[in-house]
């Protein structure tokens, strides 16, 4: 479907949903109580979604529980261990998916019955695949996706200093030096946290030799492959050449680095599509209130610079930001599915995820670039959509052990404790153990 057609569908869905009389849609045959847990939908927004759901399903009582991301998984772990699994809950991709997939209902019969045999066409292929277990169970359906591998810049500061976003490693160094000269932190990264370091390393590795990273992750090649060593050396150069901010290894991405960028003390940051809401008026207002400034700055994503000198800018990875899962032991599966189906409907995907400019779980709904505030931001939404539609590279690694080992290796290289080769040899030792190579 072309972008224009998708936009038209989106507009039609939103308009139709607003005009349809609620009573005509109400389904009173579905009954029961549903407990829904999430870290993804803040409490007030969750309550609003439940209120809208109850207009359609008046006889289903939903108890919505929201926790912050740092609280969510410890609380969920304890509840699940005690056998108190929520009827519906949000879950992350990767290791968290593997941990909770055994407790889920297979959603395949439900989604097939509702959307037909070609139901897979309604989702992005890579995120959908990450919700299906090795034995074919659809343990989770993507509620919201994310694209990673992009950098963001403060266009307001760049314009003032006559700078443009870098397209090569040399330009990245030059822009960083110019920002430092102007007393602006060039680029911020919470390099004490593995997830953002991995986003960066994957972005580099996918340029140096596309796909090699995943072959290593799957145990098909060694982590000491020359292309990965080269990627690790490029990673190291970001610290040596003044691109990474001083003290990066002791900072978190949230709130430390994000705070520096949002308060306009830093010129660039690595973020993904989860940050797209900052391009909306609502997002701008929230940040202005939080940081107490009337001054508006223009924050724009840009493609990862060409760091290996082949003339190609970086692509993106795609993965699920939050799955929707149903408990295998739920006593109200029909009502639980009604809630999941409602949350995955075009109406909610367009209004909730689309309203924030984050990537919807279903591919049947496209983002509306007109929600962004500036031309550059609207342009970015278009190339983001193109890159995400084209990519097959997932963001999450397959095994937590190798992920942890690579996270440690990245920090050890950045802090001069190990060379690129030695650090990757350590990762390979873990990989050999995991894959029994």
């Amino acid at each position, binding site marked *: 479907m072309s972008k224009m057609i998708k936009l038209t569908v989106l507009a039609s869905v939103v308009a139709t949903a607003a005009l349809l009389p609620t009573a005509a849609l109400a389904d009173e045959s579905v009954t029961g109580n549903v407990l829904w847990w999430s*870290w*993804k*939908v*803040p*409490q007030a927004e969750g309550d609003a979604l439940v209120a809208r759901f109850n207009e359609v399903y008046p006889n289903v009582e939903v*108890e919505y*529980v929201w*926790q*912050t*991301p740092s*609280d969510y998984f*410890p*609380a969920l772990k*304890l*509840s699940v*261990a*005690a*056998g*108190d699994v929520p009827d519906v809950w949000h879950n992350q991709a990767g290791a968290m998916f593997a941990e909770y997939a055994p407790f889920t209902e297979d959603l395949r019969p439900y989604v097939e019955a509702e959307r037909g045999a070609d139901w897979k066409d309604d989702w992005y292929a890579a995120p959908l695949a990450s919700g299906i277990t090795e034995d074919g169970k659809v343990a989770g359906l993507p509620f919201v996706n994310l694209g990673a591998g992009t950098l963001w810049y403060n266009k307001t500061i760049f314009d003032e200093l006559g700078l443009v976003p870098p397209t090569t490693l040399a330009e990245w160094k030059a822009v960083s030096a110019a920002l430092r000269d102007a007393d602006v932190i060039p680029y911020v990264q919470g390099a004490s946290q593995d997830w953002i370091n991995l986003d960066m390393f994957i972005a580099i590795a996918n340029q140096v030799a596309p796909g090699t990273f995943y072959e290593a992750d799957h145990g098909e090649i060694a982590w000491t492959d020359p292309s990965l060593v080269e990627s690790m050396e490029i990673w190291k150069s970001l610290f040596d050449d003044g691109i990474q901010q001083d003290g990066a290894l002791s900072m978190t991405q*949230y*709130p430390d680095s*994000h*705070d520096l960028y*949002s308060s306009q003390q830093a010129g660039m940051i690595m973020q993904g599509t*989860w940050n797209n*809401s900052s391009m909306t008026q609502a*997002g701008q207002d*929230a*940040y202005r*209130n*939080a*940081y*107490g400034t009337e001054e508006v700055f223009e924050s724009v994503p840009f493609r990862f610079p060409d760091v290996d000198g082949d003339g190609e800018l970086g692509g993106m990875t795609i993965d699920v930001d939050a799955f929707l899962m149903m408990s295998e032991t739920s006593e109200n599966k029909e009502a639980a599915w009604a809630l999941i189906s409602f949350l995955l409907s075009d109406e909610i995907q367009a209004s909730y995820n689309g309203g924030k400019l984050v990537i919807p779980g279903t591919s049947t709904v496209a983002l509306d670039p007109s929600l962004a505030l500036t031309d550059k931001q609207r342009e970015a939404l278009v190339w983001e959509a193109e890159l995400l539609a084209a990519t097959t590279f997932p963001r999450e690694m397959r095994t937590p052990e190798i992920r942890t080992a690579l996270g440690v290796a990245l920090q050890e290289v950045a802090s001069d404790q190990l060379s690129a080769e030695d650090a990757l040899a350590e990762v390979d030792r873990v990989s050999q153990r995991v894959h029994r190579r």
Partner: protein
Amino acid sequence: MHLQASPATLRISQGTLLLAGAVFAAPMLVAISVAMRGGGVTNFVTVITDPNMPRFMLNSLIVAGGTIAVVLTSATLAAYAFVALPLRWAQPLLLLLIAPLMIPPASIFLPIFINVRALGLLNTLPAVIGPIAALTIPVMLLLIRSFLMGVPRSILDAAKMDGSNSFQTLRFILLPMMKPILVVSTVWTFLTAWNEYFLPLVFLRRVESQVVSMAPKYFTIDERTPNLGLQFAALLLISVPTLLLFLYFRRHLIRPVTSGAVK
């Protein structure tokens, strides 16, 4: 009474105290500075007028009050029994009661959760009061028992000779003497209950059943980004009752430290 000290000693003492004061005050000043970020004083108004705050405050007061009632009653009665009554198996019983002190609380959350759920107490305040009280009683038992062991045996014997039964001895002789230690126990238990985070997190899932320690998490820009100004304003505001309690009882809190130092 004032000790004699040389001017140099006084200057060093004052300098050291000022330095220590600055070290303790610094985090508070940082917290106040962050709390002013964004809206300034308006941040405090935003937090106070948040529609959830009155319910959170009331729930916390109930949790703290309930925990104090359970802990003080249980620990006082138990300590009195261990000190004043001819108990059989007193030592093994005492060891049994203080054994929870040696168990990391994190390791018993799962059995506590299973019991709370089996009792149908999820989303009710007793789900939090019970476990906090159970984990606090051993400390208070040791504290109160230690205090009672300092009471001369002759006072108990005199009460007995005057015809007091065990309960009357506790009610009319010991309790008036125990005021300082009961104040300490009250403040300690209040702090424990008021600041508890994990138990309310897992047991009190509904917004209407949550407590003040959960309040800051609701002040966010989005699901990943805290609104630090509002969160720190909330943190400072919810620490006010603790501060007031400490100021109100400060005489009693300092006295036990010095009592008995001079005969």
